[in-house]
C-alpha cells in the first residue's frame, strides 16, 4: 500500500463536498465508515473513468453534485463544466452535441470540424438524458462507450473521460433510455432529498460554489477549446490551465484537486488491487444468478422460464433479461476504487456488497409478478435500487451458507482443467452447473 497522500486528498475532496457543497445524509455503511452514496460513487466514477446515471426528483442536486465532483477531480472551473454540459431535449442535434462544420472554411470549400466543448472535456455531463428522444440517444452511444467522437470524416479520441448523466423520473416530457445506452452506465445512483433539516440549510451560506469559479481561467479555457489547435496539442495546454485552476483552489480552500498524473497514478494503484477468493467466488455466484437458464442455456429477454424448473428458487427465475459482460467490469472498477479508498490491499466481499446493487439496479429487468409483489415494500431507496440491494442480500446469504463448498468446487474445477482426473463437485446453485459446462467445454 503506497503512502503518497492520494487517499487523503480524495477524502478531503469528499469531505469538502459533503460538508459545504452537497448536503445529504449518509446512506451507505462500508466497514464501519458512513458515506453518502451519491458523492462516493460519483467520486469513484470520476477517478475510475466510469459512467454514472444519476436519478432523482428535480432540484435535488443531481447535476450539481456531478459538477462539483468534476470540478474538483479534473480541475476545471465550474463555468467551463457548465459550458460543456449537454442538455437533453427533443430538439437536440448532433451539431450541438458532437461538432459542426466550420462554416467559414466550408465557404472556402474546405471541410473542417469545430468540436463542441462536450467532446473535448474529459469530465462530461449530460443533463436530463431521458429528455433526448430515443433516436438521438444513439448519437452519444459510441462516444460514451469508447471515447471516440466522429463528425464528417474527422474524429477525436478522449484518452481520459468519465460521464455523468442525470435523469428525472418518468413524466410527460421524458423518454425511455434505450437498452444499449442503459447498459453502458456502470452505476446508477439516486440523489436523495436530504431531509427537512439539511434542506433548510441549503442556500443559507450564500453562493457556496463561488470558490469553484474562476472567470479568467474560464475565458482562457473557452479560447483554447475554440482554437484550431490539434486536439492532442490542446490537451497539453488544457493541463496547464487545469493545474492553474487547481492551484487557485488550493490557495482558496487548502485542498489540492487532482492533476492528471495524480489521477493516472491512482488508477494504476486501483488496478493493482486483485479480488480475494471469496470476492471472486461471490461475484461468480452473482453473475450466475443473473445469466443462468438451465433450459435455454442462458437468460434471454425473449424467453420465459419453464414450468417446474429446478432453479426456481434463484434470481434467474425472477428476472427477464441476461446480465451483460459490462456488469462484471463495472463491478470490478468500482469495487477496486472502493478498496483503494478504504486502504485495503484486496477487493473483498464488503466492497462488492456495497457496489453491486448500484451496478445492477438499472440493468436488471424484473418480472412483473416480482415488481407487483415488492413495490409496496417499506424502503428508503428507489424501487430498482431496493430490488438490487435485496437481491445482493439474498445471494450473499446463499454464499455464506456454501462458500467453502463453492470455493472447493472452483478449485476442483481448476484442477480438472489442468488435466487432473477428478469429478466436479455437485451443489445446488446455478454456478455448479456453469462450472460443469466449462469443464465439458474443456473435454471437447
Amino acid at each position, binding site marked *: 500500500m503506497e503512502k503518497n497522500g492520494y487517499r487523503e486528498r480524495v477524502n478531503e475532496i469528499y469531505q469538502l463536498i459533503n460538508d459545504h457543497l452537497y448536503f445529504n445524509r449518509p446512506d451507505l455503511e462500508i466497514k464501519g465508515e458512513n458515506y453518502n452514496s451519491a458523492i462516493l460513487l460519483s467520486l469513484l466514477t470520476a477517478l475510475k*473513468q466510469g459512467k454514472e446515471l444519476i436519478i432523482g426528483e428535480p432540484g435535488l442536486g443531481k447535476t450539481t453534485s456531478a459538477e462539483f465532483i468534476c470540478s474538483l477531480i479534473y480541475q476545471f472551473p465550474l463555468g467551463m463544466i457548465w459550458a460543456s454540459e449537454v442538455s437533453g431535449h427533443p430538439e437536440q442535434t448532433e451539431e450541438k452535441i458532437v461538432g459542426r462544420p466550420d462554416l467559414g472554411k466550408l465557404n472556402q470549400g474546405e471541410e473542417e470540424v469545430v468540436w463542441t466543448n462536450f467532446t473535448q472535456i474529459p469530465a462530461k455531463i449530460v443533463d436530463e438524458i431521458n429528455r433526448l428522444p430515443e433516436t438521438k440517444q444513439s448519437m452519444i452511444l459510441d462516444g460514451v462507450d469508447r471515447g471516440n467522437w466522429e463528425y464528417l470524416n474527422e474524429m477525436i479520441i478522449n*484518452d*481520459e473521460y468519465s460521464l455523468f448523466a442525470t435523469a428525472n423520473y418518468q413524466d410527460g416530457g421524458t423518454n425511455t433510455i434505450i437498452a444499449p445506452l442503459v447498459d453502458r452506465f456502470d452505476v446508477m445512483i439516486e440523489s436523495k432529498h436530504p431531509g427537512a433539516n439539511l434542506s433548510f440549510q441549503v442556500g443559507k451560506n450564500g453562493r457556496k460554489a463561488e470558490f469553484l469559479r474562476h472567470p479568467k481561467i474560464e475565458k482562457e479555457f473557452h479560447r483554447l477549446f475554440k482554437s484550431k489547435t490539434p486536439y492532442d496539442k490542446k490537451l497539453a495546454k488544457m493541463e496547464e490551465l487545469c493545474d492553474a485552476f487547481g492551484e487557485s483552489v488550493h490557495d482558496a480552500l487548502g485542498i489540492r484537486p487532482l492533476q492528471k*498524473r495524480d489521477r*493516472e*497514478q491512482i*488508477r*494504476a494503484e486501483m*488496478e493493482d488491487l486483485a*479480488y480475494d*477468493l471469496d470476492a*471472486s*467466488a461471490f461475484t461468480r455466484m452473482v453473475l450466475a444468478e443473473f445469466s443462468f437458464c438451465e433450459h435455454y442455456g442462458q437468460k434471454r429477454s425473449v424467453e420465459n422460464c419453464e414450468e417446474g424448473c429446478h432453479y426456481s428458487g434463484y434470481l434467474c427465475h425472477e428476472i427477464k433479461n441476461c446480465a451483460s459482460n459490462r456488469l462484471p467490469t463495472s463491478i470490478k472498477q468500482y469495487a477496486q476504487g472502493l478498496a483503494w479508498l478504504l486502504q485495503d490491499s484486496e477487493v473483498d466481499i464488503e466492497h462488492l456488497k456495497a457496489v453491486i446493487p448500484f451496478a445492477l439496479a438499472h440493468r436488471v429487468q424484473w418480472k412483473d409478478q416480482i415488481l407487483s409483489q415488492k413495490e409496496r415494500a417499506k424502503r428508503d431507496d428507489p424501487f430498482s435500487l431496493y430490488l438490487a440491494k435485496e437481491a445482493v442480500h439474498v445471494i450473499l446469504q446463499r454464499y455464506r*451458507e*456454501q462458500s*467453502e*463448498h463453492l*470455493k*472447493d468446487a*472452483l*478449485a*476442483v*474445477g*481448476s*484442477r480438472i*482443467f*489442468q488435466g487432473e482426473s477428478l469429478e466436479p*463437485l455437485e451443489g445446488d446453485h446455478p454456478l455448479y452447473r456453469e*462450472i460443469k459446462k*466449462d469443464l465439458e*467445454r*474443456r473435454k471437447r
Partner: protein
Amino acid sequence: MKSAPDQKRERPAISGAGDRSPRNPFEEFGRFAVSTQTLPLEEIVQSTEVVMDRIRRGYERLLEEEAKELVWMVQYNTIIKAYEVAERYVKEIEYAAEDIEDFCFALENTQKIPYLIPGPAGLYISALCNYVEEEEILLKLSDLKTEINLLGFRLPKGKRLMIEGDTGDFTGIGVEGGDLTIEGNAKNWTGAGMRSGNISVRKNIGLHTGEWMMGGEIHVGGRVRGLGNIVEGKVYEREKLVYPGKARYPNVYY
C-alpha cells in the same frame, strides 16, 4: 485506461498463434486447498449426533444417580435433588433449542436411550429448556405415546416454552416468571408451587391445579377439573376468572 507512465505494468500473457487451448476460468482457485469432501448436510448430521450423544449421556447419568431401581417417586425432595443433578449435567453441554426437541423424540424412538421414566425425563428436559441460550423453545411432543411429567419445571423469567401435544402430571410446577404454553391437555398438579409467570393450557387440565401456587396466572382454554389450595395467583377457565372467586372451591372436582 492508461496507466501511469512510470509504473511498470505486467503485459497480459497472450497465447502463441498455434496455442488454441482455452484459458482456465478457475485459475485463481488453483492454489486453494480443497477441504475434505463432506457435504454440509453430513457435517450438520455429524455435529447434531455429537450433541445428542452428550445430552443422552447426561440423561443416563441422571437415571443412574436418581432412579437406580428404575423406580422414581415424585416427592418434594427427590424433585429438587434430581433437578440439581440434571442442572449439573446440562450446564456442561453446548446445545440449541432444536436439540431438546430431538432428544424428546429420541426418548421414545431410539434404542440408544433405554428407559423413558416420565419424572426424571421431564426434569431433565426442563433443565435443558431453562439453560438453553434461546429464549423461545418449541417442543413438538404430539407423537409421543408417553406423557412426560414435570415439564416446565422452574421455567425462569424471559423464557417461553411452547409444547405441542399433551403433558403429564406436575406440568409447570415452580414456574419462576416464564411463559409456558401447552397446546393440548395437562394432567394433575399443573402449576403447583409456581411463583410468577404464565401457564396456558389450550385444552383441559386435571386436579389440584395451582396447588400452593404463590403467584402468576393459569389460563385454561377447556375445563379445569379441580383446583388445588392456591395461596396467591389467578386461574382462568375459558377466559373466566375461577380463582380468586366463589365459583370453584379447592379439592372439589367438577
